[in-house]
């Protein structure tokens, strides 16, 4: 495998709340993404997905840990030296409406990263803008409009055109399809797959929707209270999930096909506050198979037979922790 574009080790992000209280949004995350690879990041609301994406791109300051981008340690690189790197690391945000300046024309929105990061003459830039618009299947007739005259799916294509404008090595996509209709979403995923093929960009694809993540990811990481509880190849993680939380998450996911039976392990209760993290295994307050030790001991990441890494104290016992029926 190629050297990873991005390597993150022990990454933490804590937001201070005053008087020695913190929101522990991201906790000791390790991950790596190779060129042309897509890592899917799933987790429930508040699990720290967006914060992680932003810290990785240095849009937020990391509290602890290390970020290696393209062979360079960027963890504490001064802002002025991060800026030139933006050309190689881009982000697509969840809400296309608020990500785009409503007063700018689509032409200028797409041309902006080119202007900021690439040394191009005006006419060259215009050519590139039109090329990018066509690349994301956006009719060039939209170029002179402003965002309010485009649909959500069209706006998300504009955001993607901006993100790929400078041929970045890493693109973080924060829920890029969550606000879109099913068929529009399918079109966007298709586009992303093509772009990945062409440019070999590494992608971090964030979503709370397992179905979407499965469609696009090579590997998947599952986040719970800011911690990666399981990480591994997409098929392995879907077929033989190792962590009880992954299993519960998968069983709560409803396949869009009545012929696929669902085995339900409905979790009780709600996610604890990230301000006062549970001791021991962070999942123990909701885990259906928690044992006494789980309140005390912090599980380390262990590799399971199907290849994923999972953080659960009961993994060495072997077998399937939660009995999960396989779809027929």
């Amino acid at each position: 495998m190629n050297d990873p574009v991005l390597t993150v080790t022990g990454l933490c992000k804590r937001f201070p709340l005053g008087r020695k209280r913190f929101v522990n949004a991201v906790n000791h995350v390790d991950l790596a993404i190779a060129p042309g690879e897509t890592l899917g990041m799933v987790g429930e609301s508040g699990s720290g997905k967006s914060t992680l994406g932003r810290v990785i791109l240095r849009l937020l300051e990391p509290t602890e840990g290390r970020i290696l981008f393209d062979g360079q340690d960027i963890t504490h690189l001064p802002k002025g030296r991060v800026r030139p790197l933006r050309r190689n690391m881009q982000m697509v945000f969840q809400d296309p409406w608020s990500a785009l300046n409503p007063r700018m024309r689509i032409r200028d929105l797409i041309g902006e990263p080119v202007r900021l990061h690439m040394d191009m003459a005006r006419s060259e830039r215009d050519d590139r803008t039109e090329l990018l618009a066509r690349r994301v299947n956006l009719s060039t007739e939209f170029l002179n409009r402003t965002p309010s005259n485009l649909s959500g799916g069209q706006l998300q294509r504009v955001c993607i055109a901006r993100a790929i404008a400078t041929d970045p090595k890493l693109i973080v996509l924060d829920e890029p399809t969550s606000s879109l209709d099913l068929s529009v979403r399918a079109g966007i995923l298709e586009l992303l797959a093509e772009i990945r093929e062409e440019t070999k960009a590494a992608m971090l694809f964030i979503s709370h929707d397992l179905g979407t993540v499965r469609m696009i990811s090579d590997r998947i990481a599952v986040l719970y209270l800011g911690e990666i509880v399981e990480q591994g190849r997409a098929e392995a993680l879907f077929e033989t999930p190792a962590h009880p939380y992954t299993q519960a998450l998968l069983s709560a996911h409803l396949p869009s096909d009545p012929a696929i039976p669902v085995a339900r392990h409905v979790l009780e209760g709600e996610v604890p506050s990230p301000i006062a993290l549970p001791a021991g295994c962070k999942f123990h307050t909701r885990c259906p198979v928690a044992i006494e030790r789980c309140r005390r001991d912090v599980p380390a990441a262990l590799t399971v037979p199907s290849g994923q890494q999972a953080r659960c104290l009961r993994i060495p016992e072997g077998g399937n922790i939660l009995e999960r029926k396989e779809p027929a």
Partner: protein
Amino acid sequence: MTLLEVDDLHTHFISRDIDNRVRVAKALNGVSFSLEAGRILGIVGETGAGKSLTAQSVVGLLRPPAKIVGGSVRFEGRELTTMAPDALNRLRGHEIAMVVQNPRTSLDPLTRVGDQLVRLHQVHSDAAPAASRQRALEMMQAVGIPDPQSRARAWPHELSGGMAQRVLLAMALMNAPKLLIADEPTTGLDVTVQAQILDLLRDLVARFDMATTIITHDLGVVAHFCDDIAVMFAGSIVESGPVRDVFAHPAHPYTRNLIGATPERFRVGGARLLGGQPPDLYNLPDGCAFRARCGFATDLCRTPVPRTHVSADHVALCHFAGQLDAAPDAEAQA
């Protein structure tokens, strides 16, 4: 017995432009469906298809410039479209309950949640306040709110999304409705919370023998929680029938597209799906409204579209319903 019978419902937005010319957006164009006690109908369709508007038209919650211009809504044989507003008001919140699309906006931020439940009960019955309070606690219990006694004193802003949705359900159930319409009851909630709410809903439907309609974007919810499905496009139900039949043999090209775009069927790099703009409601085309996006369209599709029975209770609005072969995800190459 058929509890709700919606027949050929037409709802328009009627306004005037700056030149004082009348402009009409034909938002619902002949919606028909029926609902029986104890059954769950799922209504799906892309954004703007008219799902919420259908619900609002049925329960009489339309606001101008929206207006029902044709068709009928019968609830236990009583016609609702012509019913006097206060009679309809009495029915609503009592025998008919609706959970609207955004839970935050439908709770009164200045009233404790328990008091909101009590107030709703008092309006529709002459029970003693203590009895209403008792019922409120029971309903909070029924929707799985832990420790109802103390949660009843909570303010709406103190509730998580899942809890707020439960409170809305409890409100809807306060007066033991016969018909429940839930507009996107789990959209925006996490999957694990969604699972809790849906399990609860199905349980309540069985227990109280309610007729229920769930409006949703999520075909997974329909596949696993509904008995019947209605697929909407541009203000019409273009296909309806038992969930299993429609998923196994979608008869309308739009339904095929929709099902083909689900994670279970969609393969990146596989068949192309026909996305595209919804038709202009101010200027709907003659014949089939799906024509511009349909891979099967012919000249025949410019003429009025027949309601075609694919089987006894499986109906599609397409000239070629039941004649499109191949699997739903193979269609796009056509």
